[in-house]
């Protein structure tokens, strides 16, 4: 049995886990669910030693364990199957499974491949992997790679196997196969922890489910006693209608953006929608469902295979972000602010004005006016309430919330009509989150900007958007309108969204 007692973990600015206690019983598949950012991944990483808990204890079969890193956890019989498939493409299946315990001819260091393949075959049989042990990894399907990873965990004598969204890259049929293997596996007394966003899987496969919300453990229930609605309520159940931001008075007649049949194969298929002035259009769906992918095609970061984009009534050809920004005034605030949003080592000033330098240039000397630059940066710092000791501060030193405001501000400085905002509050603390929400609302309501809000955070999207498009499997599968109507309750809207996702 794997038992967690009072686990807490903080990152700068965020309390990722707060006093979480859960017990995982052998012979059961235990689901761990929660919204993005609820703390599931952090908890998994603490169990397998990648992160260290700030407080709390982990017990394995009644014995307290203290793991410094992943290797050590592995040696204690805890293994994780990551969401992304991590393999060495050129290795054989047997090699991948036996990687850390290859059998050699005595002390010579020469590998006895016959023995390795033989041993690997045993584990492959356990997980129902029906390929020769000498097959190369790169030739395997996603599901077979998954099974290889599980076989590898078994070969490492794992008594606890953490599965982080194992079906996210699998087809339905492949997922079914995986489930039946997991069902066989649990009878051998392995502790299986299953992280998933898909309710149907949770109910079909798992015996027990634990819900995390905002880093706290909401509850653990046998799946048999739980209805789907109840589970959703546990996941997102906070009351959030109490501080309603007010209805958006967008302009129904003025269409700012129309997208028709936007397609980029493998990323987004046949997406069509319109956006009106002063509107906040929410895009909801799982990571990889096509929301961010569509946004990136729209702004020219990825090539469009077919489709039309009409900006303010004119057909737009957007082949780079430069086109999107300077010709169409469409801005894109990336979900990945550290890697793609900010020049972390540069000043607040440079990060705020990077989009508007051409506007501040003296025609003759080509010199960017430092006065204008300071003024613009100042305005942004003031209107967005960015907390910084000065414009010369290095952005890396700001807190997450303020960094996010900086990366939002550069698009406001550029005077974009349309702003695509991707996961604006990931890794941002509660206070800054509230500020960012109010800011986005103000941008639409007061400044008449049109906003496309991509978010996996259901309360966030319901709170801000007036209309929500639901994405699944790279398509728009539904639309929920009139979201900002104060007469509609949060539950009503979230259920309506949930219907499209099942």
């Amino acid at each position: 049995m794997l038992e967690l007692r009072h686990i807490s973990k903080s990152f700068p600015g965020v309390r990722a886990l707060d006093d979480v206690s859960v017990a995982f019983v052998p012979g059961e598949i235990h689901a761990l669910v929660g919204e993005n950012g609820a703390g599931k991944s952090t908890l998994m990483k603490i169990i397998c030693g990648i992160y260290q808990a700030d407080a709390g204890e982990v017990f394995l079969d009644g014995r307290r364990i203290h793991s410094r890193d992943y290797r050590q956890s592995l040696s204690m019989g805890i293994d994780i199957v990551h969401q992304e498939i991590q393999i060495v493409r050129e290795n054989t299946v047997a090699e991948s499974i036996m990687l850390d315990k290859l059998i050699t001819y005595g002390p010579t260091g020469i590998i006895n491949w016959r023995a390795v393949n033989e041993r690997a075959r045993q584990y492959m049989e356990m997980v129902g992997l029906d390929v020769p042990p000498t097959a190369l990894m790169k030739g395997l399907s996603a599901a077979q790679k998954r099974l290889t990873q599980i076989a590898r965990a078994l070969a490492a004598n794992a008594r606890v196997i953490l599965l982080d969204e194992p079906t996210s890259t699998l087809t339905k049929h492949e997922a079914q196969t995986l489930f039946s293997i997991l069902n066989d596996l649990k009878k051998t007394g392995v502790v299986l922890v299953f992280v998933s966003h898909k309710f149907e899987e949770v109910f079909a496969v798992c015996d027990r489910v634990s819900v995390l919300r905002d880093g706290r453990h909401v509850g653990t229930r046998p799946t048999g006693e739980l209805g789907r609605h109840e589970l959703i309520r546990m996941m997102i159940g906070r009351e959030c209608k109490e501080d309603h931001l007010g209805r958006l008075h967008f302009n129904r007649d003025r269409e700012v953006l129309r997208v028709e049949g936007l397609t980029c194969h493998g990323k987004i298929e046949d997406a069509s929608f319109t956006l009106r002035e002063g509107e906040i259009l929410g895009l909801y769906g799982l990571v990889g469902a096509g929301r961010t992918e569509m946004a990136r095609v729209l702004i020219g970061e990825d090539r469009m295979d077919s489709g039309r984009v009409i900006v303010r009534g004119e057909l737009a050809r957007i082949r780079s972000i430069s086109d999107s920004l300077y010709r169409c005034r469409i801005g894109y605030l990336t979900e990945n602010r550290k890697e793609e949003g900010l020049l972390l080592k540069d000043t607040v000033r440079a990060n705020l004005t990077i989009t508007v330098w051409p506007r501040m240039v003296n025609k003759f000397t080509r010199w960017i006016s430092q006065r204008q630059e300071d003024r613009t940066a100042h305005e942004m710092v003031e209107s967005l309430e960015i907390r910084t000791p000065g414009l010369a501060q290095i952005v890396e030193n700001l807190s997450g919330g303020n960094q996010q405001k900086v990366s939002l501000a550069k698009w406001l400085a550029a005077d974009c009509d349309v702003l695509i905002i991707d996961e604006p509050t990931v890794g941002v603390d509660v206070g800054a989150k509230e500020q960012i929400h109010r800011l986005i609302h103000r941008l639409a309501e007061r400044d008449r900007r049109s906003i496309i809000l991509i978010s996996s955070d259901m309360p966030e999207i319901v709170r801000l958007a007036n209309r929500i498009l639901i994405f699944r499997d790279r398509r728009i599968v539904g639309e929920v309108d009139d979201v900002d109507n104060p007469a509609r309750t949060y539950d009503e809207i979230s259920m309506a969204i949930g219907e499209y996702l099942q």
Partner: protein
Amino acid sequence: MSHIPTSQPRSGLEKRVLIPGRTIGLLIAAALLFAVIAAYSDTFLKPYTLFVVSRQVAQFVLVALAQAVCLVVGGMNLSVGAIGSLTTVALGLCLDNWGLPAWQAVPVALAVGAACGLINGLLIIKVKINSFIVTLSTMFIFMGLRSGISGGNPYAVPDSFTIVGQGKIFGVPYFFLIMLVVLVVVAYMYRNTVFGRRMLATGGNEDAARLSGIRTDRMILGANVLSGLFAALAAVLYASELGSAAPETGDSWLIVSFAVAIIGGTGLNGGVISALGILMGGIIYTLIRHGLIEIKANPYYMNVYLGLLILLAIAIDRGREVYAQRKRQTPDTAAEPTELHSD
């Protein structure tokens, strides 16, 4: 939700630093080195020695600039020397074989250098191969063309061509003055022009720069053309100094270009450059070489000292970075709760 008062940025921090602390360190190091050598050697302060040394500084600085502009956008250019060689051969062909006047030959040579840079740049952005591989390959190609075309023989240049490379004004070589002009232009460009700052942004974080509407591919292309141009300029001036267009020009530039650029504080990961720093780097590098000759160090071991010098420069830089990071982390985490509301 309580209203959070806006922090009023303090005006003292608004100031853009004119000369960063690191460059001041280099200035002091260069001055010390100069003083030590001047005190030790009887001949060092003679006008002729200073003339020769300053011309050498000028050459090294131009070569380092050719490297630094590529480093700034997050790339590198291993073919700086090869471009210099090929440019020299082009110059020789124009002056010697075709008898063109210098005012026609020099632009042709510079254009050849810029074209080499353009080829590098196009390969990097269009074929999307990293700059290391691209310039490693083109280095061989350019070197091969150089040898094939010239057959290894130097070209004669007319006497009038040597005026710039051998002449001086108030004891200062024209070569050095031209280098200073180039350096000032570069400093101006990176300090606050759109092109310069966009190149810096590209080197600082290419993805973020692109997602901020910067055509990063054009920045990389521009940097490589500039790199070719600077290498060509160094080659032309060197031919003028030498009084002949020698195809082996540039054979030793690769190491020099990195050494001077790195000592001068150019960030190896891109986004950081200091024109003044590169000048100081050039002076320090030249003086150390000169000093080693003065103390009659075994010339066969010369490269050992220069290699150690590069390592030292990197180590000092790294040390500063680690120190700055440590200093930053402690007070910043303590300052965090001012913004955090109870969670």
